[in-house]
């Protein structure tokens, strides 16, 4: 069996918006590259210190929706509080629960390069599935 040693993401085309596809060996390991994919859609967000831990917890019945909820929270933290996730110290993602302890940092707007505003993470074509070697998640961000 192939193992996704290095979790990763790529963009895929969606006419007016952007698709993000993420791979990892386990479901919880999808979270970090998914966050990186979201941030990369916005631009190159430079971390600017002021680090602090933050806990996220969501309940539900669909892991892809839980992933979307987590990413939505990150988007709002970026837009409203100008903070970004820089590391995940512990993560659980099952069909019914997402729990993350993360390290957050301020975004240095002066050193950052912005590409575009992400309005939301949609439910459209949202998915997590098993693939050889691990898991694949897809989500589409509204631009």
């Amino acid at each position: 069996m192939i193992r996704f040693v290095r979790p990763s993401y790529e963009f895929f085309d969606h006419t007016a918006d952007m698709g993000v596809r993420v791979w990892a060996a386990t479901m919880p390991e999808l979270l970090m590259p998914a966050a990186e994919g979201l941030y990369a859609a916005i631009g190159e967000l430079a971390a600017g210190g002021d680090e602090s831990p933050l806990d996220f917890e969501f309940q539900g019945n669909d892991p892809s929706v839980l992933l979307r909820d987590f990413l939505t929270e990150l988007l709002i933290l970026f837009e409203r509080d100008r903070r970004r996730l820089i590391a995940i110290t512990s993560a659980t993602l099952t069909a019914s629960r997402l729990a993350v302890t993360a390290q957050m940092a301020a975004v240095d707007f002066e050193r950052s390069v912005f590409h575009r505003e992400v309005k939301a993470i949609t439910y459209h074509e949202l998915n997590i599935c098993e693939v050889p070697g691990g898991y694949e998640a897809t989500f589409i961000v509204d631009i």
Partner: protein
Amino acid sequence: MADNYTGPLERIDATRWRIPKSYKPGMLVDGVIYADDVLIAAIKGDKSPEQVANVACLPGIVKHSLAMPDIHWGYGFCIGGVAATDPQKGGVISPGGVGYDINCGVRLIRTNITYKDARENMGKLINELFDTVPTGVGKGGVVKFSKPELRKLMAEGSRFVVKRGFGWESDIEATEAHGCIPDAVPDSLSDRALSRGMDQCGTLGSGNHFMEVQVVERIDDAKAAGAMGLAEGNLTVMIHSGSRGLGYQVCEDALKELQDTPRKYGIDLPDKQLVCAPVESAEGKSYLGAMRAAANFAWCNRQIMTHLAREAFSIIFGLPAERLGMNLVYDVAHNIAKMETYNVDGKTCQLCVHRKGATRAFPPGHPELPERYRGIGQPVLVPGDMGRASYVLTGQPGSMEHTFGSSCHGAGRRMSRGAAIRASKGRNIKRELAERGVIARARGRTGLEEEQPDAYKDVNEVVNVLHAADISHRVARLRPVGVIKG
């Protein structure tokens, strides 16, 4: 790129194609797409017709699930989609039929300034607009509203900001719904929605949002152009933006709240993004109240930017905006759901009309039009792309008969953002635009590449289809000469 659509598309006439309701289980009505032979070939290149078919599954949908010729793949609804539902027959409201950017829309400001006279100042003007109007990621507005002020703003709409000096009394009459949909319920918005809106009223955003200086290149309907104050050779200003983070959050909150609602009402949906509730249900009413509040916020957003544009013009041309004749021609919403009256099979009905990337296009004589447009029909504002043209149209009787008073909202994308960036490799889009006589300023690194003219369909083809179908008629063609983007 999206998979091709391989389902049925039957020609109805020269401008319409049908997806029969037999195509997939759950479709309650046919899908109808407006397009000519050229456009339909492009439309089949993505999954947007499948989305037209999906929308045809919404309970209470009336007549057809419609798509305008600027249709392209969206999320849930296609972009360019129109769907009317009858609340008396279990008709639903779907936040996905409005979109995240509630009351994203377009407004057009006329001027007395000729391009010939302004040409040498065009660089300075675009720089002044770029410095004056907040654009791009993280840019706050020139005014920050407290949460109680925001609630009042959303209850009163455009009038709230006009009273505070951001515009003229005449702007209100020239705005769809006078810049205020009644029965907004600002108190129903989450604290998070308010927080996201506090410093974003009067900001452009990014993506396909823009402020463009244009020259009236051609008049097709002199009477209508005269009523709108449009003269060949004169400058206009077009603003495209919506309800910013506040509106996105209203949609986000609604989608979350409505996740289990279809099950509660026994509604089977082909796409999670189409979650909905009966218009007459508590859930449906709650969303409509919040959506109306966000729509009113969007009108205030465009109103404040109108004020900023007038200030920039005054600085560059050394005259007050009134002397420059900077009157608002009209402001239209193109992401909205509204209760409107139609005649369906001989009966007068109040329907909930979803316009997801579609513009209201009421014909001459419609009682909701301002007096000065009653004889010509509602101005329909259709941005094209940064390099070619935009159009001013007027709503025609065919819109009431066939499209629930709706027309197109733009040219419609034909390339994905990724494809547009790939197509820009080795090119300098800013220079290419300059060679076409368009001065462009953008804050985002990829904004001009993603929004380059080639990324869009030819707006001429789109408006020609609707002209031929008697949905909306051409009045004036506007050529861009300067643009600012996020």
